[in-house]
């Protein structure tokens, strides 16, 4: 119920003219500075909406007269980062792998860049630190190489992969399944022989019988004393490292019905500099030859 605006006797302030049951409202306006800040923020928001992307439209949105966007900013930042990397990457492309490996500056750069590329592309199978995984994913930190651990051999493996169908030059080796070729006792004997190569056999007689079977079937790929043949990708059998496990049951299983892993070819997926950095990184993990 509006009443007349009057001066309040107690406080000396004016009333607003609003009255409820005899209670009158004092006119206590917002402080000026507060209002000016409010107006200022409103003006600011209008300016902001004009300068920067703001209102949605039927097709897309208003992009602001400055043309700024988060996406273009990150694109610029990425381009700047790439420009900074470029001289190093050019040097890595131009140098031989051996030169990269021996130049402290390039080595440090390749190790850092290789670590990132490794985590992105390789860690899924070979483990975050190159430790490999059970069931046929080779460790890259040790000194046992199926296809060779020199810089060139590692690069070859990365570029073309192993047993894949995309790359005609992929490394290829095929171990036959001996389930139908050898009898069960023969498989048992040759498994004992293989274990004896690294001093693990528990049955000397069987190992002795297995030597003949080994000489007949296995020597071509795994070598006379189980040292492995890298040219054909035949893994060493006389060392302490077992791709598919070193217990007798696992060895028997591998002879009977072998498993063989596949590695994709990275030549078409990664650029040359990345592959070279990866090569050097893998080489420095511990087993480089």
């Amino acid at each position, binding site marked *: 119920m509006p009443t007349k605006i009057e001066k309040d006797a107690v406080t000396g302030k004016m009333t607003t003219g609003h009255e409820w049951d005899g209670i009158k409202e004092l006119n206590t306006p917002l402080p000026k500075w507060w209002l000016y800040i409010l107006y200022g923020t409103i003006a600011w928001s209008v300016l902001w909406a004009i300068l920067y992307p703001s209102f949605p439209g039927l097709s897309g949105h208003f992009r602001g007269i400055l043309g700024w966007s988060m996406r273009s900013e990150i694109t610029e930042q990425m381009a700047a980062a790439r420009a900074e990397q470029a001289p190093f990457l050019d040097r890595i492309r131009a140098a031989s792998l051996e030169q990269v490996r021996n130049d402290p500056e390039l080595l*440090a750069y390749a190790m850092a860049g290789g670590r990132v590329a490794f985590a992105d592309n390789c860690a899924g199978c070979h483990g975050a630190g190159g430790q490999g995984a059970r069931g046929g994913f080779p460790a890259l930190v040790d000194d046992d190489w199926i296809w060779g651990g020199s810089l060139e051999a590692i690069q070859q493996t990365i570029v073309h992969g192993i047993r894949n169908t995309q790359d005609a030059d992929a490394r290829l080796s095929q171990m036959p399944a001996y389930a139908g070729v050898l009898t069960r006792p023969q498989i048992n004997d040759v498994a004992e022989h293989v274990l004896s190569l690294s001093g693990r056999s528990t049955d000397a007689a069987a190992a002795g019988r297995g030597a003949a079977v080994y000489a007949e079937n296995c020597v071509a790929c795994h070598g006379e004393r189980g040292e492995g043949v890298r040219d054909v990708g035949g893994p060493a059998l006389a060392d302490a490292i077992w791709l598919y496990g070193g217990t007798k049951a696992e060895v028997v299983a591998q002879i009977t019905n072998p498993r063989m892993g596949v590695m994709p070819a990275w030549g078409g997926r990664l650029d040359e500099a990345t592959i070279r950095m990866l090569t050097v990184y893998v080489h420095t993990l511990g087993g480089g030859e």
Partner: protein
Amino acid sequence: MDAPTKAKPTPAQASQPASLYAAHVKVYPARVQGRFRYAKWVFLVVALGIYYGLPWLRWDRPGDAPDQFVLIDLAGRRFYLGPIAIWQDELYFVTGLLIIAAVALFLVTSLFGRVWCGYACPQTVWTDLYLWVERRIEGDRNARMRLDQGHRNGAYWRRKVLKHAAWIVIAAATGGAFVLYFGDAPTMLADIVTGQAGSWTYSFLGILTFTTYALAGWAREQVCTYMCPWPRFQGAMLDENSLIVTYRTWRGEPRGKHKQGESWEGQGDCVDCRQCVNVCPTGIDIRDGQQLECIGCGLCIDACDAIMDKVGRPRGLIALDTLAHMQKAETACAALPPGPARQLAGDTATADRRIIRPRTLIYAGVLAAVCLVMLAAFLMRSTTELAVLRDRAPVYILLADGSVRNAFTVKVWNKGYEEPHYALGVEGLPGAAVAVVGAPQEAATIATRADGVATNRVHVTAPAGARLPESTRLRFVLTDENGQEVVSHDSVFLAPKR
């Protein structure tokens, strides 16, 4: 207009509910001359000289860092003080300096009262400088008061604009000098002037320009009275033996006008000239006793001494004195009537000024202890440090011949400007082979980076057939070419469960 003192509530106001808001009364400090004023000028020139000049002091420094004596290199994470370079991991030296400064402030306050507030505080120094500018442009106290109350004519605006312009120039120079501590001063100044400095530089320059202008130009004594926490808790450092600015009541009261040639019998020395109030930068009346607002600058002493010389009374009606002495004098002259006899009794009542007392001893002891600890830590600081991080994936590597290898990341901090090569060895694992990636296999040497951190991959291989426990304690040792141990770091060697 009456002299602007802080409003005391009148009896009529006291019956009303007390308002918590005190309207600001502008203070117009008058010009004064004397010993304390002179000391303040000297301190002002020295302090501002150091502040504005220090970034320009050069120091020939190897490496890429600018040749600046005092430099806070935020990008490089270094603090340079002449030949000393403090790295970010040694920030405790800077913390130590701050602790030393704080305890020294406690000690000085308990001995001499609020000398920090009155002489050394940046708020005081810049306010003094701003007041000096104000006085040069607008005149002394009375002229300034007239100007503010008079017409807003051309002369008024000319002076005001000139004053604020001068203030803003000083403020900008203050902000500008601050940012110069963070980079090469000549380069930065050129960049700032030509508009090529970074946004951070301009932001801080702007912020400090604004705070200097606002605090020294406008806020002034309100900073000390309302904003600053230090006056609130420094009461804990003061006691009855600390020097404070005091009005000697027994000598001054009863105050009143005095005609030249008349006897002083029955009258105190205070002629109620209000000079002590007029010169006060915080606008208080020291004759009301100890007050929170008093910053202990002693300008009222200078003002009063000049008046005492004029009226032919001894100096020291307002003086630096202790509460203990005030108490003694008060008691000694209580029975005597006002006049010279009473003043003599008060003057001769002395209280031994106890400089050595538990409070000062404790502050001095703490100060000495912190100084010694920081000095010892500084003298024993190593310029080479070693950190060893062992690989977690994989925790160990099994090699073809059955031996076990662990891989580590070894970082060498080199705080010097030489680049020595060190031999890296391990202790605790007999027969272990150490190989640094990128270094010749047989040597296991680690190259360092001058004024930087060198990161190396290191492989430690236990000999084949060594029957190792799951975990072996290992110590990495760097040795120089003479075989002397430089620095070491502990780690462990992990092997598979047997």
